[in-house]
């Protein structure tokens, strides 16, 4: 028993655990909000919306866990925040003000033009990859792959919980 307890505590701080915790918390939140406001849409739409929400929740929680230390996590959080803002704006129909805000934010994104490179596809895949040189791009890719793999594992195990 003690060994298991020790094992548990030794790994509580790993990326996987932190991500799992956060992800589940966000799922809880989603559940509560689901309870409140559904009923008008068809089930298909509900499912699609939930898919998207779950995906963003997973991405956001992963980015939060990693923290602002990595370029890709910062870029991912930024993108998600922008997207949320746009959606909120559309919902509230305050298009003008939100657009202005969004435009202001967009100016902060730097654009670096380069010759077409083989690594361009990689830049598209990794969030924030446009503004990195090859060296840091590779580093960020390595970390990103690691975190993606953790994410997949955790989500897989959650899904397995219910699908056996």
């Amino acid at each position, binding site marked *: 028993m003690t060994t*298991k307890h020790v094992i548990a505590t030794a790994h509580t701080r790993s990326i996987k655990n932190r991500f799992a915790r956060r992800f589940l918390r966000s799922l809880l939140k989603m559940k509560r909000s689901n309870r409140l406001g559904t009923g008008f849409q068809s*089930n298909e739409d509900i499912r699609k919306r939930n898919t998207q929400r779950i995906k963003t929740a997973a991405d956001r929680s992963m980015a939060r866990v990693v923290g602002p230390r990595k370029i890709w996590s910062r870029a991912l959080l930024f993108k998600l925040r922008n997207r949320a803002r746009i959606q909120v704006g559309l919902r509230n129909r305050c298009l003008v003000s939100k657009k202005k805000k969004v435009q202001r934010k967009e100016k902060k994104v730097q654009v670096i033009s380069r010759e077409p490179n083989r690594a361009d596809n*990689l830049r598209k895949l990794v969030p924030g990859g446009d503004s990195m040189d090859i060296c840091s791009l590779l580093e960020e890719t*390595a970390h990103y792959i690691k975190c993606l793999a953790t994410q997949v594992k955790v*989500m897989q195990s959650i899904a397995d919980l219910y699908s056996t």
Partner: protein
Amino acid sequence: MDGSGDNNGDLGYQNRAESVMNCPSSGMNTNPFYASAWDPVVSLSQPGNFVGSSTGSQSEFSNSPFPIVMENPGISNTCHLVRYPSDSGFIELVPKFPGFGSGNFSEIVGSLGLTECSQIVNAGCPPNYKEANNESTSHGAQRQEDHQLSEETTIGALPNGKRRRRAAESNSPFDPNKNAEGEFQKYPSGESSDSAKELDEKKQKIEQNRGANSCGKQVVKQTKDNPQSREAPKENYIHVRARRGQATNSHSLAERVRREKISERMRMLQELVPGCNKITGKAVMLDEIINYVQSLQQQVEFLSMKLATVNPELYNDVERIQSKDILHSRGGNEAIRGLSPGTNSHQYSHGTFQPGIPVIPNPNPHFSPAHHAILDNELQSFFQMGFDSSSAIDSLGPNGNQKVLVISTQQTFVSIFLTCRY
């Protein structure tokens, strides 16, 4: 003395000669060579002399035991009095050498003689040797050929391993100084060992071998050193040694470092991406990496879709999972047992909890919010009970992916024994 020196420094630029010469307390009784081109000239506090050169003025050296060598990298404006006998009242000599391309200086230096230079080399650097060459070397790119000369002569005079930069393109054939250089070479190499203080990946400074005198083709990149006199911000340089038979150009060395970094990262990625052990070559490797990242992202999407369809059950049990299951399953076993409460909700009216859930999209209409609330509360109380049942954990083997689905008798809950091997 210092005051006079400061005055000279303040005064400005042109035609220092007279003012300095007239300065009685300077202690400089000799060497009236100040170039008019020199900008602020600082007089020595020492009875020693300093070397100045000018385009037109005579260059006279006193044969004092303290020859002063100036470092003059490029068109920068600093010049240092390297050696002064005993005193710390050292004033910087800050001449400008715009018109420095005169042959006079070579004469001066030539007359300075190697012996003197070597004296300088052996001299210790006084503690408040200022770090103006920090600024000076920043102008290194604008070196003129003639300045190479002074630079070479002063190299040995920088015993603290100040940064030296020789432009690769400089071709000045300063023969008289080649020998001096040979001597000086020892010095930097000796110093690089102690001055390997700060390393940085970005900047690298090279001292280039001048062909004939170099023994082997070893080039040592100097590290920039800040002596204690200055609290300048730390600048870090990488210490790289070129191997035999490799180009020793500063650019190529920098490139090589960069290439090595990239290949090191590619190796790291090779370990992460499964199935890439046999791939050699960056291009193929990159494609593999791209494919892998794409596949991972697709997996995430697919799994989120799957989770969305599993939704309601997921929501029900989220708290339970959150507390126990995923978080502690590092190759370990987790047993969560939940018991059905007395008041069961009849959501699962159709009986058992279907394993093939993803096919069933909408259990939503079956549930009413009230039931959810009840379930949640019960859940929380239950897993606390259930968690203590560690005997269940022991009963399961440590290895293997065993999934046991236990359906409660009242068929309201699903309790799952799950072992996940991560």
